Structures are given as C-alpha cells and as structure tokens.
C-alpha cells in the first residue's frame, strides 16, 4: 500500500534519534574501561535494569511481529506472547543468580568459569555471534517495514539507516548508553501501548470501522456448469476466471482497469465478492487493484462482519465495553479476515486477498496459523510443540539478555531486575492481544505487511499517536539492535581475541577491538535485513530462540546442575545445538519459499527446529561428558 508521510512523524522521529545519540555521546565520554564498555561497570540500579531488560526484550518482534500476527491470525499470534513471557521463568528461577555468580562480562565467561577451556571459549563465542545475528535479522526487517510509512522511504533505506545509527551508538558508548536507551524506550513503549489500548477499548466495536472505510461490493452472477456465464452489472464486464486451489476467482474489467473478485455464496445467493489484488506484469510493473500504487486503490482492511451484543442480537455498534467484555464480544462476533492466494494469469503473477469471514470463536482460540485443529497433521502438531519449547527455553539462553545480569551490582539486584522485567513484559504482552485484535477489526491492515499492524492502529486514533508509536517502535529496533551488537562485540573482543586467542589485549585495545567488531556485525545485519524483507518478524525471532535454546541452554543448565559435566561435553553440545538447529531451519518449508522452491518438497517439514535440536544438544552433552570423565578427574587431581 502507499502511505502518506506525516511531517509530525518525521519531526518526532528525528528528535528521538537525536536524543538517543545524545545519551550515547554523554555516556561514551565516561566509558573508558572494558568493564564499563561491556557491563556498564556493574553499577546500574535494578529498577532501571529491569525496565532496560523489558526494553531489550520487547523488540520489533514483540511490538510489530506479535501484534501483526494476532491481527492476521488471531490467538495464534498471542501464543508467542505467552511463550516469550514463560521463558522468563526459566531465566529467573534457574539461570539469573548462578549466571551472575559465575560470570564476568559475557555468557562465555560464565560457562567457562569452572574449566578454562579453549573449546568452550571458541564455541560459546561463536554461538553468541550466531544467535545475535539470527536475532538481528528480524530487528532489521522491522526497521525496514517501519520507515516506509514513517518517512516514505524504501525498505533497504530503513535497514541501512538503523544499521548505521546503531553501529555508531555502540561503537561510541557501549553498555551504559545501551542500558539507558533501553530503559527509556522500554518505559515509553509500555506507557504508549497502554494509551493505545485504552483508546481502543473506549472506542468500542463497530461494523464500519471508519467513515472512509472501503465498501466492498457484491455482484450477482449467472452460473453455467462450473463457470460464471454472465454478471448482473452494467459497469463491469467479465474478463477472465480461474479456479485456484478450490477458490473460484473472476477478473472483471471496468474502464480499462482489471479487478479480481471471488465467487461466494451470500444469503443463499451466488455472488461475486470484491477482493484486493496485486499484479506484477512481465515487465515488472506493479498494479494494485489494477492501478498504479499512487492511485491508492490498495485499501487498508479488516472489519467485523457480524457484531453480536451480549444479548445475542446483531448490532452495528457497541460502546461502553470493558477489557473482558471487549474480548468476549469479539468471540461472539464474525470478523472478516483476508485470505491470500497467489497464481499466474497469462504472463502476470497475481496475488489476490479475498474476504474470509471467520467466527470470533475460531479467532480467539488456537488453530488459524498453527495447524493444531483443522487440517492438522502429526508434523504440524509437532511443529507447534517445537515452537513452544523453543520459546520457553530460548529466553534464558539469549546472549543479549544474559549480559544484562552483569550490569547490576549483586545477585539480589539481578533477581529483582528480572522480576521488574517479568512484570513489565507480562503487562505489555497482555496488551498485545488487544492491539492485535484491534488492528484486525479497525480497518487498518496493510495486507502486504503484517508487521505494520500496531503502528497503523495507532494512526486510526490520530497522527500524533501514530508518530509517537512509530518513533518508539523505531527506537525499539535501535535499542535491541544495540544490545545485540554489544553482545556480539563482547564475544569477539573478550571471548575470541582476548581469551581464546590469548592476544593479551590492553583494556583500551579490547574496547577498540569490540568497537571494530560492532561495525562488522552491524554490516552483516544490514545485509541480512535486506534479504529477509517481508517475513513476519516474530516468526524470524522464533528461529533465534530455537538456536539459542539448542546451543546455549543445555550447556547452562547442565553446568549448573550436573556435576559430571565436562568441558568437552559443553563444547560439543553447543556445536551440535547450533549445527542441528541451523540445518533444520535451512531445510525447512519456510526457507524453501525464500529459495523460490516448492515448500512441499522441503526435506524436513518442521518450521521450528527446537523439538529435535534441544534434546539432541542435551544428549550430546551427556554422552560426551560421560566419555570424557577422565578430564574432570585430572583437573581435580
């Protein structure tokens, strides 16, 4: 779709970025030591750190991705919220304090505290780098999605801009500035999401989301055999028709403009229902509903088909709803979602989005995205379990979350800041269900980008709220990316160069190496952010969690709770965890779509590797540790 650029949005955005850069400069001048650069000198207050945790964690995936997924697939998107939050329980109850006790600057330090093993240093540093890069991709994709409506620039400009600003922030200041940026951003995100949700609930529900919402037409038809013989309209003429996967699509022409319609049954009559379409012609011209993008015919959509009040009557509008009755009313109603169908029409490749009225009961329970109900197969059910497992175990293994334990003065502070984080993040995740379902029913969805649902919902309530929310979302990306880049630069400078290669860097040299590493990782993230354009960012984060959970968590847990764990066991478990998780991802149906291949031919039908790679990594650790017990015995002697 085409967005009109708002000057207010640009002004607010620029103020935000300048503010963030200002903080970086301020703390950058103060940060000279390695402890200051990588761990903020261990001096951050637990309350600040807790909200900064929330800032780190509530990345583009949470705000843009989850809200977008709920807006397109209902409750299934909310499952990400639940999984992401549940993961914090592992972090708080099992990992937080021991990690604080064992670690110095990085996660590798903690793993290696007992062994001083070259193998662990190398593998843990590589794992930190890989997980950080996996997590960076969705942040960059989110940045690209945001600049389009905010500044009217193409995806790649957004990605490069975020990459450069963040790399600059990190290369100048390190963990202290990152922490304060995250604190401010995390706080603002939660405050303004609450404001948006209050607006939404107060606004109530209506079958016509706004006065300028597009009215979808229907045309009666005459059927002969399996095809449409004629239409009852003087404006349109029948141009073409085809059946794609049991969906009967009809092309109509009016004044030289072609539009696509879907054959449906409505109130016992066979009719054509207006759909939305994007056509890419042989010469690369893109047409939206048959016209160039600038004609603005690619409408924002999503509305309630049948609105049912608490007495069971069909009504046009309901106001005075509370937080619970808002959700239960949606459950009782029917919501018009839009289903996507791709096909070729002569030389043109066409994507049609047709109306798909879905009962609120189906939307508010699992099954629309994850095939656990209709059309479920054993693989699809395993895929779902695999994702939930990765989300649960992934949080406590994310390097940019783990390093935050080293920024506070004590174990007690580590624990308290985790609880502040859980409360802040948990509250925000409850809001995602409201924001996502709000976007679904308020006629704001851009069918080409699920990631924009929450900011576009804010736009519904005024350009001011949209500008603020977009600027915060952009800062969200900036903040999370900085955290990840600090984690990666720590892995390179501290773990790889200083410890693994024994380069004996001076304190200053280490900070310089960290900054150079930050620039390189930033560059890689920019490239990948451009390559993965268009994928839902929460989905991509699911992969980062799976890799983290497979590579790091078995090592952390077994080191803490199994006395027979050896250095070799840890090294091999990280290696197998990374390799198996990445292999399954690269051979998954979703990646096959990226390669331009038929997803049905993917050798592994799992979308998320956790269910295989996490147990495999545990098993490797146990077997290798048992085989190398001699090492521990020698060490003790």
């Amino acid at each position, binding site marked *: 779709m085409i967005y009109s650029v708002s000057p207010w949005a640009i002004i607010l955005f620029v103020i935000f970025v300048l503010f963030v850069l200002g903080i970086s400069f301020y703390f950058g001048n103060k940060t000279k030591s390695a402890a200051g650069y990588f761990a903020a000198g261990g001096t951050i207050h637990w309350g600040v750190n807790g909200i900064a945790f929330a800032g780190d964690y509530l990345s583009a995936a949470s705000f843009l991705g989850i809200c977008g997924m709920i807006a397109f697939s209902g409750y299934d998107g909310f499952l990400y919220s639940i999984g992401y939050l549940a993961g914090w329980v592992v972090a708080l109850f099992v990992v937080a304090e021991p990690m604080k006790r064992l670690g110095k600057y990085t996660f590798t330090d903690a793993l290696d505290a007992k062994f001083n093993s070259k193998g662990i240093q190398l593998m843990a540093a590589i794992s930190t780098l890989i997980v950080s890069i996996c997590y960076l991709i969705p942040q960059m994709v989110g940045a690209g999605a945001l600049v389009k409506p905010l500044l009217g620039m193409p995806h790649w400009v957004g990605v490069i801009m975020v990459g450069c600003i963040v790399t600059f922030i990190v290369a100048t200041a390190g963990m202290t500035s990152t922490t304060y940026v995250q604190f401010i951003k995390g706080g603002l995100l939660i405050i303004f999401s609450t404001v948006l949700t209050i607006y939404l609930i107060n606004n109530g529900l209506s079958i016509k989301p706004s006065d300028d919402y597009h009215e979808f037409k229907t045309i009666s038809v005459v059927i002969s055999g399996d095809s449409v013989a004629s239409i009852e309209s003087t404006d349109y003429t029948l141009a073409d028709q085809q059946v794609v996967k049991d969906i009967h699509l009809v092309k109509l022409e009016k004044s030289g403009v072609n539009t696509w319609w879907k054959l449906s049954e409505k109130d016992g009559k066979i009719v054509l229902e207006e759909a939305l379409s994007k056509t890419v012609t042989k010469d690369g011209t893109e047409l939206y509903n048959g016209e160039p993008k600038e004609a603005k015919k690619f409408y924002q959509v999503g509305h309630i088909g049948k609105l049912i009040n608490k007495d069971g009557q069909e009504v046009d509008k309901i106001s005075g709803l509370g937080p*619970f009755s808002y959700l239960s009313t949606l459950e009782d109603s029917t919501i018009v979602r839009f289903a996507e169908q791709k096909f070729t029409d002569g030389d043109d490749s066409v994507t049609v989005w047709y109306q798909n009225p879905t009962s609120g009961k189906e939307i508010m*329970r699992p099954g629309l995205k994850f095939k656990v109900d209709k059309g479920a197969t054993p693989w699809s059910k395993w895929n779902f379990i695999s994702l939930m497992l990765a989300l649960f175990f992934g949080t406590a293994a994310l390097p940019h979350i783990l390093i935050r334990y080293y920024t506070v003065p004590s174990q007690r502070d580590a624990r308290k800041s985790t609880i502040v984080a859980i*409360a802040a993040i948990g509250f925000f995740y409850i809001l995602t269900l409201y924001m996502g379902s709000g976007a679904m029913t308020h006629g704001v969805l851009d069918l080409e980008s699920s990631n924009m649902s929450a900011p576009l919902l804010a736009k519904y309530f005024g350009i001011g709220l949209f500008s603020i929310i977009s600027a915060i979302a952009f800062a969200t990306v900036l903040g999370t990316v900085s955290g990840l880049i600090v984690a990666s630069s720590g892995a390179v400078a501290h773990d790889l160069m200083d410890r693994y290669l024994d380069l004996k860097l001076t304190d200053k040299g280490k900070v310089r190496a960290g900054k150079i590493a930050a620039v390189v990782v930033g560059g890689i993230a920019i490239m990948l952010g451009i390559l993965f354009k268009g994928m839902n960012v929460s989905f991509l984060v699911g992969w980062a969690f799976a890799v983290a959970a497979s590579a790091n968590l078995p090592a952390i847990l077994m080191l803490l709770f199994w006395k027979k764990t050896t250095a070799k066991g840890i090294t091999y478990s990280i290696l197998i965890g990374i390799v198996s998780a990445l292999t399954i991802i690269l051979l998954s149906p979703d990646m096959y779509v990226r390669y331009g291949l038929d997803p049905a031919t993917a050798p592994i039908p799992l979308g998320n590797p956790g269910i295989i790679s996490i147990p495999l990594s545990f098993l490797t650790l146990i077997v290798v540790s048992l085989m190398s017990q001699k090492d521990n015995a020698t060490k003790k002697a």
Partner: protein
Amino acid sequence: MLHGEAVKLGKDESAEIKSRIGLILFAVYAAIYAGFVFINTLSPKTMGTRIFMGLNLAIVYGFGLIILAIIMGILYNHYCTNLENKMNKPQGDAALESDTEEKA
C-alpha cells in the same frame, strides 16, 4: 582488570537453598505451561470453552500464565531476600569484605 568480574560479589550462604526453591518453582510453572501446550495441541476445541466472564479457556489460561509468572516471581524474591538476610547476617559485612579481598 582484564579477567576480573564487572563487580566483586561476597560469599552467599543461601545460594544452595535459593537454587532449590528456584528449581521447585520452575518445575511447577513448567508443568502448568506443558498443560497449556498439550491442551492446545491435543484438544484445541477445549480452548474455546467459555469459563470466566465470557472469556474462553485459551484467553484465561494465557493471561493466567502471564500473571502467574509475575506472582511466582514476587514470592520467590520474598523468600530469597529473607533467606539472604537470615543466613548471611551472622558473618556481617566484614566477612564479605574479607572474602572479596581474598579473591582479589
């Protein structure tokens, strides 16, 4: 400096018992989370049953998991802080300092 911690920590006598409490709470939460995943997988329609204020099981269980994590976190912190105060008190700050000096 290069291989030192970002901060120096004193010895914590309550570490073992805190870690046991943490593991018990983790096990309880993990079981409730597993229950959620299994109902979603094996009987997704059950999740559509209305159970509270017009909300279905999916929403109540989901919100419940989030709120439970917050409540359990606060309880855990309460226990741990009490334990730390009780078990680390007799040694006093002097003991913590001498421990830090030894390490250094």
